[in-house]
């Protein structure tokens, strides 16, 4: 099988928070257009790995390359410009802005033109139609599920190469989780070129969805052979 190019490549990455090592020699690769799951318990280092990719962690060893280019000297606020969209845990929307102002913000910061922003917004509302009706609502009044979708939309606004989703299903009621998964499938079909990295503590939510899976435990990352099939998860000691 010909191997596609890696858009994101992490080698021997270690990072710490206030002297405590939270990532240990992580090797990780994300191929162009791939969907990869990163599975681990709370505190295992999922968020730390995503924050390291975005440039918010103190990296002590190793390297991250994006599209073959080392990210070490790329400042955090310049990384979204490479086409990396990030939907953090807890949504972290700007509460005094409306939903659409939240979604537009990264594009406005990048000084994209009005027609380009409108074009991208249309594409986003096609994937997440429920947001179109809520667009003028203040972000502070959103429910958990709506907030997660708005955070995904905001990541999509600039993430045309890679999108990092930190525990998108966390705290969602089953109906909303299904709705969110459906949106991700639509996104998968309409934007096959975007690579998705999704973290989750419950692997069954991403079954039939991610083609590759990594497990993270105490800051160490291992690839789960055979992806998220139940048998391979059991073999890796997860359920």
């Amino acid at each position: 099988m010909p191997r596609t190019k890696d858009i994101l490549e992490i080698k021997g990455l270690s990072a710490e928070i206030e002297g405590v090592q939270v990532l240990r020699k992580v090797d990780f690769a994300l191929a162009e257009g791939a969907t990869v799951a990163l599975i681990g318990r709370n505190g295992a280092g999922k968020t730390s790995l995503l924050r390291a990719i975005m440039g918010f962690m103190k990296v002590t060893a190793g390297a991250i390359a994006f599209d073959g280019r080392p990210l070490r000297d790329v400042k955090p606020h310049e990384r979204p410009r490479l086409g990396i969209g990030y939907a953090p845990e807890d949504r972290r929307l700007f509460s005094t802005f409306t939903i659409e102002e939240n979604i537009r913000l990264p594009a406005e910061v990048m000084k994209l033109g009005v027609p380009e922003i409108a074009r991208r917004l249309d594409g986003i509302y096609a994937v997440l139609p429920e947001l179109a009706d809520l667009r003028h609502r203040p972000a502070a009044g959103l429910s958990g599920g709506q907030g997660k979708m708005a955070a995904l939309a905001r990541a999509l606004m600039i993430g045309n190469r890679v999108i990092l989703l930190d525990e998108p299903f966390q705290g969602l009621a089953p109906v909303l989780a299904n709705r969110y998964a459906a949106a991700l499938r639509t996104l998968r079909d309409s934007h096959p070129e975007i690579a998705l990295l999704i973290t989750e503590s419950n692997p069954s939510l991403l079954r039939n969805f991610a083609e590759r899976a990594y497990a993270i435990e105490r800051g160490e990352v291992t690839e789960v052979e055979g992806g998220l099939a139940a048998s391979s998860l059991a073999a890796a000691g997860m359920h």
Partner: protein
Amino acid sequence: MILLAALDGLAYGSLIFLVAVGLSLIFGVLGVLNVAHGSFYAIGAYVAASAVLAAAGMGLPTWLAFPLFLVSAVLVGVVVGGTVEALLLRRIYGKEEVLQLLVTFAVFMILEDAQKVVFGTQPLFANAPMNWLGTVEVFGIFYTSYQLILIPLVALVVLLGLRWFLRRTRFGRAIVAVTQDREAAMAMGIDATRIYLFTFIIGASLAALGGALSSATTSLTPGIGSGMIVLSFAVAATAGLGRIEGAAVAALMIGLGRSAAVYFAPEFDVLIPYLIMVAVLLIKPEGLFTTVQTRKV
């Protein structure tokens, strides 16, 4: 009498507002309580007065003082404010509050002495701009147009301008985003370092503008900065730090309260701002205009 006190308080409250809103903006965005903020007020006053006197010495027309006020305020904001932020404050973001207070207090002390070295300790008086604007008569009492109209007008323009800037411009929205969540804002491509620098310059320039406007109304002596910083702290605390409209209302309350005291109970003149602050904080410890944080889930 009440009306007279109110008119007096208007100019005074407007000046406090200009200083306090800068302080409040800086705290809201950078998270640093800037003790050196009063120095920008004082330096703004000295630079403006010196510029006005120099212009008069060259035989230039008096109206030139008003653009000079604006120029000196921006100059002080960029040169002094920009230097303080880039060289010192940048190193202490996110550190313990005690350290931040000590560092900005040290900056305040340094700037106080620098003022004495540069501008001397002799009182400086440049009231030509105030006299040039003439007076208005209200119920038989003459007020200077400068204090009754110009200063409150500038404060109003600043209030409306800041609101418009923060809500309607791309740069202003980026400032609001950084205020709410620095890391999430950076993940949207916002250069937080640049936002911090610009916010500090804006805040410092507003304090310097307040100083520049005050320079025509009083004689400048060393120590004017420390009086102003305490008052603007009181205003910012009363309003809730980081609140722009709140700072306007609180500045007006304290300005009016103080001038009412001058008329009715002069012995409480100095005390009134703090009595108002304590009364507000007893009832609403988070400040008048701070709303409860929005829910997370």
